[in-house]
């Protein structure tokens, strides 16, 4: 999906778009990050923690 060049207010389309703004305009990259970060740090790590608890006899 080619990122459409967003224009900043008042600026022309030719103006270089700052990296941060390109990130914020890339909705599907944000979706990917917003799912992956908690999936790894919270879910996967958390499940590993629980899986390591020894089974009681």
């Amino acid at each position: 999906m080619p990122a459409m060049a967003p224009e900043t207010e008042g600026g022309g389309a030719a103006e270089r778009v700052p990296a941060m703004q390109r990130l914020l305009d890339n909705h599907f990259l944000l979706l990917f990050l917003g799912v992956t970060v908690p999936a790894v740090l919270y879910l996967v790590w958390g499940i590993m923690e629980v899986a390591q608890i020894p089974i009681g006899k």
Partner: protein
Amino acid sequence: MAASNEFRTCSVTGLKVHLPAEALIKANAVVAVVFLAVGGLFGLLVALTRWQAVHILPAEWFYLLLTAHGADVLLFWVIFFEVALLYFASAILLNCRLATPWLAWVAFALMLAGAAIANVAVLQGESSVMFTSYVPMKAAPHFYVGLIVFAVGTLTAVGIFFGTLVIAREERTYQGSIPLVTFGALTAAIIAVFTLASGAIILIPTFLWSVGLITTIDPVMYKVIWWGMGHSSQQINVAAHVAVWYAIAAVVLGAKPISEKVSRTAFLMYILFLQLASAHHLLAEPGISSEWKVFNTSYALYLAVLGSMIHGMSVPGAIEAAQRKLGFNAGIFGWLRKAPWGNPAFSGMFISLVLFGFLGGISGVVLGTEQINLMMHNTLYVPGHFHATVVAGTTLAFMAFTYLAVPLVFRREIVLPTLAKWQPYLFGLGVAGISLFMMGAGTLGVARRHWDITFSDAPLTFEYPPAAILMMGLNGMSAVLAAIGGLAYVLVVVGSILFGKRLDAPDAERPRFIPRLPTTVAAYGSAGTLHVPGTIVLVTVFFMSFVLYYFVNWKYLSEIWPMR
């Protein structure tokens, strides 16, 4: 499909409105309000039961209606309303057609069917497992089916939001970046995807367990994954109601954020870190390492809290800047005194902002700190905290937004304007009461989800300090006030939708609570000023209260748990 490409031009805003999107917004919003009314009534009954002098419900009904209350308000009211918001923030604010309206109707039908099935299951009495439905407590299988069907419908609706963003970009219906309000909705939608995925991972096996196809589900495993859903869904609410704050400030005052860049970065913090806070529900769990707990609830979470603090400064800052531009420049707080306090959209938004920050935010950070959490874990402090966040914060913000949505989307004037003016104050005061008094009782050790704290028929007795019983009485009275505020909302909304003066005539007047052209809500742009002294004072007061209360709790802890 000709019908799906029909637009009208809004007589108030001049925005192009996609008619199928509008119909879907209406349907989702109406169903939301119905669930709020039903669930709110259950909440009142629960609160009256915990008021010892009234103690209205028998034990079985207490747990049954507590379960129904949690599901109807926190799932069904809030999420139906959020779906309406997602469609509004995409199709309407982007001047665009909604992706696949027919599928959106399927999503709506699934959500409605799921919510109905879950309600039937709970009201039949075999599923009083409460909001968290922790295993090994087992509900009837159709309870889980209801929740799963509801979640599938919601995920479909979220997909339609993303589809609409793609259409808007391809058809170039907006320029540059999406508006801030839509970006907030995007944040909510992203968190919703993680939420619903966690829900699927845990609820599907739990359903199989309830019908006997799986023999056991590990309770701690359940809690970890369930809270990936249960907590993250609260972060959908935060993102959505912050977006609503910006939207209301823009519509009522023409406010623009102090800095688009900073506000968007704050939403980015939410996307990256807010969901990790799910771990605060497991702080008292044995078997899980402190590294996991502390990383997820402190280091990472504080970045998300930073995001909230930015919004907490940026929204009043936007209001102050807009008011000063309108000429209300006297002194430090002239802009606040001269704010439109008689406009329920504004007053509701501002009360939501203040209560969410002072009551919900501060108590949340306290509960989220591993050490001091232990003093309040599973006490009424917890419901006290989250009624400040999801009721005073989210619910009141959504109520406030309705006063703008009814004229804009339903094209009806608000009826009973005097009642409408008072509604946010009644509800806000009531909810502030239930939050504070439940927190107060919790600090004195009163357990949450407990039918009778006098232990009248128990073999072993225990006596709470009289102050705790008093708190529960005050909580019950506040609940009555909140319920009156809730009833006022339902009356005004239903009355307006059915009997309000039509606003679609060409010579119709400007809606009562929308004083100016609300164009900034769909635009990109910052206020372009840093002259907001009043906001700086407010934020300083907030910080001081925060720090003070935080350390008071460490002091309590040191007294409970002396290190000698």
